[in-house]
């Protein structure tokens, strides 16, 4: 069953580094798992935890957030702010029972096309192993059924 499972993963990436890295992966004709849907944002500092919750709300099995390496931020320190935020949010999700394997963070520069492709593959594999996020999907299903007691 799990062999057939194709996870849906949403990646929030910054436009200056990771998105450029994804571009490089493409122009280098590197093949990687097609399970990741990329959403480009100006900076990791713009990536609110709300985005991650929204992705889960819409049925994502995993979320990846990625941006410039520390020190490389186009806006000088957007990624430093993001890093703290993720640190805290990750701990919170962990405590709530949303496994940290489903919400991953990475630094990928514009030059790291190879790392991007590898990461997409490994993240997809990891989440494929975990299987669909059934517990969350059950909550989504519950919203679609008439209220009962």
């Amino acid at each position, binding site marked *: 069953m799990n062999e057939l499972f194709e996870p849906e993963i949403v990646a929030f990436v910054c436009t200056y580094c990771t998105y450029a890295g994804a571009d490089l992966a493409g122009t280098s004709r590197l093949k990687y798992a097609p399970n990741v849907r990329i959403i480009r944002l100006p900076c990791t500092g713009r990536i609110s935890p709300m985005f991650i919750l929204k992705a889960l709300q819409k049925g994502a099995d995993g979320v990846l957030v990625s941006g410039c390496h520390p020190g490389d931020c186009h806006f000088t320190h957007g990624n430093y702010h993001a890093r703290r935020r993720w640190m805290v949010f990750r701990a919170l999700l962990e405590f709530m029972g949303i496994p940290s394997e489903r919400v991953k963070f990475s630094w990928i520069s514009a030059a790291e096309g190879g790392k991007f492709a590898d990461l997409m593959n490994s993240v997809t594999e990891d989440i494929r192993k975990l299987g669909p996020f059934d517990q969350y999907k059950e909550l989504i299903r519950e919203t*679609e059924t008439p*209220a009962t007691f």
Partner: protein
Amino acid sequence: MTRILLRDKLDNCVARWRKAGLTVIGPVKKETFSSYAAVENAAELDLSMIMPDRSIKGLFFPQTEPMLHYTIKKQALDIKDFTPPPEKRIIFGARPCDASGMAIDDPLFGWDYKDNFWFQRRNETVIVTIACTKADDFCMCTSLKLAPDSTKGSDVMLRPLQNNRGWLVEELTDRGRDAFNEIADLLQDGSEPEASIAVVPEKFDLDACVTWLQKTENFESTFWKEISMRCIGCASCTFLCPTCHCFDFQDEGDTYSGIRRKNWDSCSFALFTMHTSGHNPRATQSARWRQRIMHKFNYFPGKFNVNSCSGCGRCSRQCPVDMGITETLQAISTLQP
């Protein structure tokens, strides 16, 4: 001839009702919280508590409920009605205040336009009320001209017997009679001494309060600001109230498909009445608290001839800052009319 339901037969009753296809619901106490919930046997019921934390309202008017399901295709809108699935239910051990609350809201949901989400559940549910033998400091049914044994809104009234032996059965409606015919052989004829009904002292003079509220000039009284200064504007009073009925519509979904839902809403929220222009008719917390009191004891009776309060006291019992209807009406009764 009066009939008696003995407590040790209750488990059989629950089983019998369940077998007849009824969902049996009653007061259930969990670790930190109590509510009316579905049960499988009588042991799950906790009939000793004064009243569950949550009122019975949610069983008829859920906190969130889908109304419509929409799918949008190119140039076509597909809309499916969400009607509550038919479910026959019996609520065993409702409190008289909770049961009256439902009767109070019937005219509201029925005037002119009939809200079938409410009435379908009302028609499918038998409310078996047990008269109260104890009350706490917050109970105030008597102040609302109701009583710990009022039959308003109930289909069957059970009057507790002494020594916790069972209840005297008083069937009030056809719905109630049908449900008790199902268990007729578990009842026994005869009469036993009844336990004494709880004494709930009257806390305020309702008529005096209503007179004060009806006076036009009191709408602008500084009293409202004074009494509501510590109100923090949450909705715990309105959401726990058995009669508060305000709601909101929310669409959840996207451009292709989704659900329109009916959710509880509360007059204590600032956004409740906020206009698009930014103008808010009830811009302050005191105006919102005034609306709640006026609505319950002036506007609602003006339309439906009944106060929109059944005296359960949950608003005061659960208020984070110890406010509530009791305190406000007590204060009003001391004011010059």
